[in-house]
């Protein structure tokens, strides 16, 4: 099966390759067997001698950074880490302060992403949870043992305003414009808050939960 001569990876003309039927994928038996994982790992360790040691070093570095971040958040901001939800919930008025502290004191210099989400009003066990937005931000340290810092901010829907991070990271400009465009969260201090993806005349913010996915768009639908 595997020795079929008409292996379709032909360096010459495409017509021959297109005409030849797939020769290797027929039948369930034709699977590359592979070797025992111990053999493979031992051989790879020989081929890449420094890899495992470096990975271990990075893991410990990352753990140290995570610990430092936890301590920092607990001390300065009084929040507990919440790894199952990506990061802790920080008061919205300290959003900018936290970003600046992370950038300038802890070395989280790379602006990764921002993600806003819309939560309509819903009834919970403890009572009514009003409509609100959540804004998650991710920063990252550079180089060996890189660690990402995530935190979330809760924004009331009637205000829907949060501090912009553009004064700290120029890359936040378009990311925040996109969140404004798709969710309607406004950013205080943003130099140029316009729609990014949709035309300027567009009505509504598509990623809100109350926006139907097939909303009419004249004249096509």
């Amino acid at each position, binding site marked *: 099966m595997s020795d079929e001569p008409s292996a379709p990876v032909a360096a010459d003309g495409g017509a021959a390759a297109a005409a030849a039927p797939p020769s290797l994928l027929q039948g369930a038996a034709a699977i590359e067997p592979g070797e025992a994982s111990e053999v493979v790992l031992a051989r790879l360790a020989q081929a890449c001698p420094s890899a495992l040691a470096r990975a271990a070093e990075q893991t410990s570095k990352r753990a140290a950074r995570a610990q430092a971040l936890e301590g920092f958040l607990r001390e300065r901001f009084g929040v507990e880490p919440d790894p199952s939800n990506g990061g802790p919930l920080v008061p919205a008025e300290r959003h900018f302060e936290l970003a600046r502290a992370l950038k300038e004191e802890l070395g989280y210099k790379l602006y990764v992403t921002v993600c806003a989400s819309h939560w309509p009003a819903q009834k919970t066990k403890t009572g009514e949870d009003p409509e609100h937005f959540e804004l998650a931000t991710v920063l990252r340290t550079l180089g060996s043992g890189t660690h990402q810092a995530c935190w979330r901010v809760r924004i009331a829907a009637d205000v829907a305003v949060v501090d912009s991070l553009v004064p700290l990271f120029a890359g936040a400009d378009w990311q925040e414009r996109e969140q404004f465009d798709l969710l309607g969260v406004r950013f205080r201090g943003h*130099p140029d808050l316009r729609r990014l993806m949709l035309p300027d005349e567009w009505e509504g913010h598509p990623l809100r939960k109350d926006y139907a996915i097939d909303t009419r768009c004249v004249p096509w639908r």
Partner: protein
Amino acid sequence: MASTAAVSSKARASSTEASLTPTRAFVPDPYLDLATYAAAADLLTLSLGPQHPSTHGVFRVVLYLDGELIVKAVPHVGYLHRGVEKLCEKLSYSNVTPILDKNDYVAPMCNEQAANMVFEQLLGVEVPLRAKFVRTLLAELQRIASHLLWLGTFAMDLGGALGGGTSVFMYCFRERELILDLFEELTGCRFHYNTHCIGGNRHDIPAGYPALVHQSLDLIEARLLEYLGMLEHPIFRDRTRGVGTVDAELALELGLTGPLLRASGIDHDLRRDAPYHVYDLLDVNVICDDGGDCYARYKVRLQEIAESIRLSRLLIDNLPAGPICSTKPLSGVTQFKITSGQAYVAIESPRGELGTWLIAGGKGMNPYRMKLRPPSLHALAAVPYLFPRHTLSDAVAILGSLDPIMGEADR
């Protein structure tokens, strides 16, 4: 046209106002008020795109030109905004993968991996060792194909300097087809593979596949030298050296990642620094360059192809036995349920850090909110900083060197 433009750009640059003199420390103001500009009345407004052969898809940038020099550039994106994030909220977890194939259509494998890794993290599903090896192999092969496509289109952007421009494009596509053939052999598709699923891969490596991989990689490696012969050329160097320089500080400010960040001299690569799959078993050589200009980006990408070839060989030679998937993807639609939790997982795609922020919630059958972190959008956000003080022809070279994929940037 190309070479004369390069010459005249240097001639012009020396004779204009001090604020436009190219110096390392000067960072253009993207929010420049044109009314304050001295020669505002004489500015020419030029709209480049959204349908233009050199914009790599549907990207539009409005240029304000003083003579041939760009004073201000205002980019517009969103011409390919397909609402992928909204669509993902309507789909079950196992159905998200094929949508993300269409997202970054030059590197679909990496998109599939980015999404499935975050699902696996929240579900707590283990991936078998063999599947991890296969994923790493596919990601590296995809990197070769993606960089080859970039090289071809970049050479075409530089146009007349390179023998009509299309020669390098033709050669690069010849080699890219070899990689696509490998993928087609494995998955049945040229692209939009849908081969990753939660817990592993759908398609196992067929018998005889390693020989095919070696054959293709040998060919590509031999032909990489041909590219050097075609591209290491005074005109090519003149048009790329010192053009579109991003220093390390600006690159970090803008959130550039991947080859763009490494070409600015920052030694950062998620494959080595935050290893996923089996990258912790491999010696990944991170290729950096201090230049920060188009030429540095070209060098970094070309060397990354060579590095990916080396890693791919290592992986296909050491394929462990065992299951390819820990769930059962082929026996009908497997329904996964995640009721709560949020996570951000990132991988190193050919264009940089490709991450997914997933919020699970609601009934748990589909994502509550999925945010993709597209490296291309960050790269395009650099345009207002890079274009000013360059000529129009340099702008095309800079845009090409950023390697934007609009499907990914607009989503």
